[in-house]
């Protein structure tokens, strides 16, 4: 087919993949962050996401620039360093119909923004919280971040003597109901997890190892492409099946476990790593700690519990967006003021 110009494929909403792209990236060629952006675009397209409902939040860093590079139909908010979670919290409360995607860095979330990360996860804000984890501060030219492995080296030769913070075990500890680790160099796995993440109602924490080609891709780095590839241990093959009212959901043959979301979507999990059960919170913690001690990255869906109520539900908010409630519903009448004044007399 060389002569005909085939029209680009569309999803169920009639959008092409092009409808999910953003502005041109200004990151370094080969930066892991760009590979993540590409999978967000793919997953949103394949998950039939309504672009105008998407909001994209970030802090400051190379990673935090990326919301400008996907889903231009959505609204972006590039805020201040380490404070993306508060922005996501406020906007998601103002309008519970929004589909919230937060993109942050390991510095943004595990150093300056650790407090906000912890509390957003505790509150189960409805959002996909992506940490593009390269072990360094890219944007300020390569200083160590709090996820840098103990004993790892900067390009300059400086050694990190402090232990790393692990976003995944931390998130599980905090009660997060969807925790995954991925590698920007494994698009297939990332795609399946992102699609499952779009269907999840509460906070999804995705720690995505994303090498910084400019400042942390050298031989002595534990976050280089080569090192991560050599130490990546995928837990399972994942299939994500979005709920559809018409089609019967088909589970891929060989799936050892199926997790069903409240909306009817399903994640089919075919284990590679024998005996890893992502619905077993303490078992998951143990396995992750053991693998970290060996210098490995267990990747995949580390922990899942699809039934935790997100914050708007906990607060028993009205179903409509608070932002646009009519005045009549939020402004008490004169009789109420009169009643209050009487009580104060």
């Amino acid at each position, binding site marked *: 087919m060389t002569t005909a110009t085939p029209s680009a494929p569309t999803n169920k909403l009639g959008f092409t993949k092009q409808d999910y792209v953003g502005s041109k990236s200004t990151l370094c060629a080969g930066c892991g962050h760009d590979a993540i952006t590409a999978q967000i675009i793919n997953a949103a397209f394949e998950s039939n996401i309504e672009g*105008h409902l998407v909001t994209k939040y970030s802090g400051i860093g190379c990673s935090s620039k990326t919301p400008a590079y996907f889903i231009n139909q959505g609204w972006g908010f590039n805020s201040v360093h380490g404070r993306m979670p508060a922005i996501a919290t*406020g906007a998601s409360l103002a309008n519970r119909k929004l589909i919230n995607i937060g993109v942050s860095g390991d510095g943004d979330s595990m150093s300056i923004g650790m407090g906000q990360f912890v509390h957003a996860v505790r509150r189960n804000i409805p959002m996909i919280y992506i940490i593009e984890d390269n072990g360094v501060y890219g944007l300020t030219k390569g200083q160590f971040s709090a996820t840098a492995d103990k004993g790892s080296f900067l390009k300059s030769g400086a050694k990190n003597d402090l232990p790393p913070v692990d976003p995944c075990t931390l998130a599980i500890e905090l009660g997060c109901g969807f925790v995954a680790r991925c590698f920007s160099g494994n698009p297939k796995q990332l795609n399946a997890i992102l699609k499952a993440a779009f269907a999840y109602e509460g906070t999804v924490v995705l720690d995505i190892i994303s090498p910084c080609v400019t400042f942390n891709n050298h031989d002595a780095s534990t976050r280089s492409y080569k090192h991560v590839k050599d130490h990546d241990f995928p837990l399972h093959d994942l299939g994500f099946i979005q709920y559809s009212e018409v089609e019967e959901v088909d589970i891929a043959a060989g799936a050892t476990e199926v997790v069903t979301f409240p909306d009817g979507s399903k994640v089919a999990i075919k284990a590679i790593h024998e005996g890893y059960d992502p619905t077993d919170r303490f078992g998951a913690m143990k396995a992750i700690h053991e693998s970290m001690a060996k210098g490995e990255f267990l990747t995949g869906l580390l922990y899942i519990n699809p039934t935790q109520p997100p914050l708007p539900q906990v607060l028993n908010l009205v179903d409509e*967006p608070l932002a646009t409630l009519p005045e009549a519903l939020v402004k008490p009448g004169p009789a*109420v003021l009169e009643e209050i004044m009487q009580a104060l007399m």
Partner: protein
Amino acid sequence: MTASLAAPSTPLGAKTRINDFSIQVATVNGSGSQTANTVLLRAIFQMGVFVSGKNLFPSNIAGLPTWFTIRASAKGYVARKASNEMLILMNAETAKEDIAKADAGALVIYDEPLQLDKLRADLSYIPVPFQKLVTASCPEPKLHKLVKNMIYVGVAARLLSVDMEEVKKAITKQLKGKAKAIEINQAAAVAGYDWAMENLEDQDHIKVVRDNKTNGLIIVDGNEACALGALFAGVTVVGWYPITPASSLVETFIEYAEEYRKDPATGKSTVAIVQMEDELASAGVVLAAGWAGARSMTSTAGPGVSLMSEFIGLGYYVEAPGVFFNVARTGPSTGLPTRTQQSDVELCAKCSHGDTQHINLYPGNMEECFQFAYDAFDLAERFQTPIFVVTDLDLGMQNWSSKPFAYPSKPYDRGKVLNQQQLAEAKDWGRYKDVDGDGICYRSLPGTAGGKGSYFTRGSGHNAYAQYSEKPEDYVEVVDRLRRKYETAKTHVPTPVFRNLGSVKGVLAFGSSDPAVIEAQDILAEEGLKTDYLRLRALPFTAEVDAFVEEKQVVYVVEQNRDGQMANLFRETYPQHATKFKSVLHYNGHAIDAKCIVDQITAFEQK
């Protein structure tokens, strides 16, 4: 035992002070004295007399000394008065010092075992056997400590000729619905009253005589008034973090929201209230909720504003609305957390790094706390920017009498927001394009369908289309427009209030200083110095303020901070008049009083 009520050696004056006196009650924090003091205040209020109360409390839950002053004023002066005609001394630890500081001629009610009557000869002493009375009147020993204070309410009521029925009514009101507590407290007050009736001679220094000045008035504090303003303004997202003296603003709001902000059809809440992990996060929640179209607010004090400042600058630059109540306290740092000051003037005017200017509202009384809280949400959405409503501990936490609040019938101003259809029709829409020339641009809300209106908000450099830009001309265009927007605000913020006695000499004040300034103005006038008073109610300064500064020979700027922060803003705004501004300052943590203003202005005038 007979108490000495003989005329003091240096009498206050021949006349009895009718409905014109101050009482100071010294107690121990956490001993239940707040209830007793409020009852006494309410009872006098119910006698139809203007009354105000100031609680001088420690930063402590229980055990440290606390003082409560009640001022009755027939003329309606409600500022703190520096001198007291009656002392009620219940705290052994401070009693000697309280006596040393007492004004000559004062009546001193005290707990008998303290044996204070030998300390000074120029006071009238009234020892009261509190323990004996409380044991007789209250059957439950474990309540004695709490109820003891109600005894002095009864004694004072008798001495002041406050009707016991009003005391009982005030107790019922204060202890809303708690039948047992009402009964016990009423019994204690009556025991005090009866004891005083039997054992004390009457006195004629200070008296309450029934009047009608408070008919139809309410008693309220500024935090509750602000909370009510926000309730009626339809706030839908609240992010906050506890801090004295601001906590009770949101806490009161929560109580009202429980009752009045449920969707009647579903019982679900029409407001999201989240106690955040700190003020920084609260600020983020407020601005993002505003950005997404909600009416949002937080309430905090100086330390919180300091933490928030990075976000406030973001809100200013990306143009996100939000209402920030700052109930100011004594700084710097933790300072005196339970004392009042107006020392965040410059902080709120220019909060955050870079060139920033904020709209600030300065309510000066309870009605304005209510109204400005309501208006702040309109202003935030109209100007798409953080708005500070600045009060202080004195306004926020003290008891004030006020006219009942008028229903704010003006519909909400939701500002320049384009809906799906308007976006579809708009030609060449840009988030930061100044279409109307007033510096205020048209925004869209996330989630708007139709494929138009999405944009990228960023705290980094941007052009009129919200695109990333480092071009000098784009940067300058945006920040110059922001200044234009601030100019526009001059015709939208509350104008000043004047009290002109006809003079070329001006007095300028704001917020909680108002009652003290009014009283000082009257005293000065009696002494032969007339002044014109402008009470500032907002930043930026409006045309009325320009004219006042232009026309006065001298402007005494009264404020409650050390550095004359508001005067500094005036000198900066009106450099050609810089020498006119003279600072009249009060900053020791107590509420400002008229005397300190009179003294300082008089000293300036004598130079």
